[in-house]
């Protein structure tokens, strides 16, 4: 159970406080309700590039990192398809420094051309390091547009292509800031050795007089229900063939998401899971196989990825995956198997309470989805799932019509 207090400033900034007196540290997590899904299709990768620019100095403070390090703080940020999240960890005694820095960059950036030039290069190198210069690095760049035909989840946070980043201008940066980086589009979580009354005073002092800006109203195209199987073959300089199969699944706020999450665990969490035990251990057709979820705010994907053993044909390997999936949809699921994955979830939740930063990030993410307290209700949502729910959900999800298959094959 993660307790918190919540208040809203007049300019719309939502503030959550999680008091945790067991640590001498404090965290500040600021979530801006903007992600890659909010980008212009011809300017993709921008939300992430913008995240880099948030460290390039703000209107009154030339350097963001240096004053924070000077008081013993550390920070980082990430951009997803849904949100952009910034976080600081520092000794709680120096909490005010974090308020000063974060409020100034919410007020306005320096919009330096030099910073834009450099970060365009840095992000291009990131694009190469993570996606282009890695074996199988281009998977999501291929799989997303196969699975999504309308919704902007069709591109990755890094963007569709390098040229979108290279062409970004300072005007784009200013427009994006104005549209998305205002108090009414942000959620701040303060946690650790802090009190709610102290946070209220600091929040008013540093954030209170920032102009509310306009509330961004998200209006994204809805992904039509997929009705036929999609396939693509991609040849690359990789040493081994690989298979990726993506299925559309419900959004994180939907109870169906939690059912799919347990199905994913039954498929591939641990050595006794279905895909691993059947295909790696017993039939020895794969060297590794996984199932994972994109956990997104809008309907996401369950992705199965596997590498067949050398000598096993890609057809045989793919067929074997489907045998495991079909078995799931057609047979009784044992209560013990369901309990196994529920117990794993339960203990994972308890272990997760040990990290202050994780708690703060989760509160912010659940708040943007609707209500931070839903974070505390997650275990309950998992525990109420029945065998029948699992079977129905598997039947509805793990079908050919709902699948997008990418064969990532080695150049001969």
């Amino acid at each position, binding site marked *: 159970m993660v307790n918190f207090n919540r208040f809203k400033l007049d300019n719309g900034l939502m503030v959550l406080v999680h008091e945790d007196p067991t640590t001498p540290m404090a965290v500040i997590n600021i979530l801006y309700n903007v992600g890659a899904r909010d980008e212009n299709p011809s300017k993709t990768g921008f939300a992430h590039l913008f995240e880099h620019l948030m460290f390039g100095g703000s209107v009154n*403070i030339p350097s963001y990192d240096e004053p924070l390090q*000077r008081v*013993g703080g550390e920070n980082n940020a990430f951009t997803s398809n849904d949100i952009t999240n910034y976080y600081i960890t520092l000794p709680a005694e120096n909490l005010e420094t974090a308020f000063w820095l974060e409020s100034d960059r919410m007020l306005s950036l320096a919009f330096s051309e030099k910073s834009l*030039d450099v970060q365009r290069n*840095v992000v291009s190198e990131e694009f190469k390091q993570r996606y282009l210069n890695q074996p199988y690095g281009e998977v999501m760049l291929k799989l997303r547009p196969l699975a999504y035909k309308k919704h902007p989840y069709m591109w990755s946070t890094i963007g569709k292509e390098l040229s979108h980043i290279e062409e970004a201008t300072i005007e784009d940066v200013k427009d994006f800031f104005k549209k998305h980086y205002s108090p009414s589009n942000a959620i701040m979580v303060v946690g650790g050795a802090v009190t709610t009354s102290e946070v209220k005073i600091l929040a008013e002092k540093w954030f209170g007089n920032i102009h509310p800006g306009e509330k961004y109203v998200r209006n994204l195209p809805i992904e039509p229900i997929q009705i036929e199987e999609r396939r693509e073959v991609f040849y690359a300089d990789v040493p081994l063939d690989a298979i990726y199969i993506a299925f559309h699944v419900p959004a994180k706020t939907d109870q169906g998401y939690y059912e799919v999450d347990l199905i994913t665990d039954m498929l591939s969490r641990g*050595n006794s899971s279905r895909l691993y035990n059947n295909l790696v251990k017993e039939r020895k057709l794969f060297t590794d196989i996984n199932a994972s979820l994109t956990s997104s705010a809008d309907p996401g994907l369950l992705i199965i990825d596997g590498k067949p053993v050398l000598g096993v044909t890609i057809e045989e390997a793919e067929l074997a995956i489907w045998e495991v999936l079909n078995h799931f949809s057609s047979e009784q699921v044992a209560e013990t198997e369901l309990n196994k994955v529920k117990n794993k979830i339960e*203990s*994972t939740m308890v*272990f997760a309470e040990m990290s202050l930063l994780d708690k703060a990030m989760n509160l912010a993410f659940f708040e943007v989805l609707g209500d931070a307290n839903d974070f505390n209700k997650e275990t309950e949502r998992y525990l109420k799932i029945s065998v029948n729910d699992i079977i129905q959900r598997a039947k509805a999800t793990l079908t050919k019509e709902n699948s997008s298959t990418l064969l990532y094959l080695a150049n001969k």
Partner: protein
Amino acid sequence: MINRTIAPAFKEINQINLIQATPRLLDNKIKLFVVNAGEQELVRIEFIFNNVNWDVNHPLQAFVTNSLLIEGSRTMSSYQISERIDSYGAFIQAEYGFDQSTVTLYTLSKHLDEVLPIVKEILTEAIFPQEELETFVRNQKQKLLISLEKNDIVTKRIFNHALFGDSIYGYIVNADDYDKVDRNELVEYYRAAYQPDNCIIIASGKVDELIAQKINSFFGNNWENTVPATKNSFSFPETKGSLYYTEKPEALQSAIRIGQLSIPRNHVDFPALQFLNTVLGGYFGSRLMANIREEKGYTYGIGSGLVSLQNVGYFLIASEVGADVCTLTLKEIEKEVNLLRTELIPGEEIELVKNYMLGSFMGSLENAFSHADKFKNIYLAGLDYDYYTRYIQTIKHISAPQLLELANKYLDYNSFIIVITGKK
């Protein structure tokens, strides 16, 4: 109106509280260290074994033995071990390091009575089934094929070999090494390494007296020593500067790894050298990051590190940079290293790094597990808690002339091993 151009006042960190591990002895003389802290009803129990009897003809012995511990025991198949552990929501990890091999259990305390017997059987009655070995070898060989397509991994292999030769730290593993692994050598290694004399246990979380007694009742009894084993020990000649270049004509980026042998944690200069390392490449605002990423945009990230192994340490700088700017990057690295040897670090920068390191140290003490990790760092290096007192004092009082002297003593670009994979 507040004046936003002025930073709020801040305090220096004075007090850092470490939760110390309490030692006790199990009935069979295994040392158990307990870090009792936290609110959650959970524990982490680590069983740590020194790597022993290094034999270059069996380079994968320790690694494969550790990996296969959970793949079958006297009464349980691999599937059953995994199923039982999973059904209690617990986690078992076998982890192989250069100096130690570890088995770690994470569990809610309420399931200890059920999961401890499973761990006991893994540690005392693992059987290394031939079929599991074959599956493991097949999978590892394919993973290796993929790893060899990653420039940073290729670079690391060459770098480690250049520093450490055919020791456990430097040996370059190839596919045929996996083919040569024989079940008998695993059984033999298991007997030598996984015995009480070679084991310590660290328990952290909400570990009360009752739990400590439980650990004793399972692991302090019915677990006997077998054969004497020799803990690995290596010494290495100083390296001379040299370049190892592997050309990849298609590369978009080049992986760079450069460095030299250095001192381990138990050397008196280690904390001060860590300070110097932080200035150069140990944090986001470091000189290498400021110059090569934030000023020039050559890379997504560059960093340096000081790694402590048993009796030896090494210093390294690593990055992946645009293939067209690889040579320029090396020039800049050389310039930054030489600057540390020729010019005093400004007082303001020393202040900043000092505060950053103290804050970072305090922040790294997040929970019972992190306190246990701090203990592990010192205990395995043969140190006690005085080390951290000295570490904090060193950081607080270090001076520019001292750092200049250290740079001249420990960082010499001309002695660096330079490994590049990609284009230059």
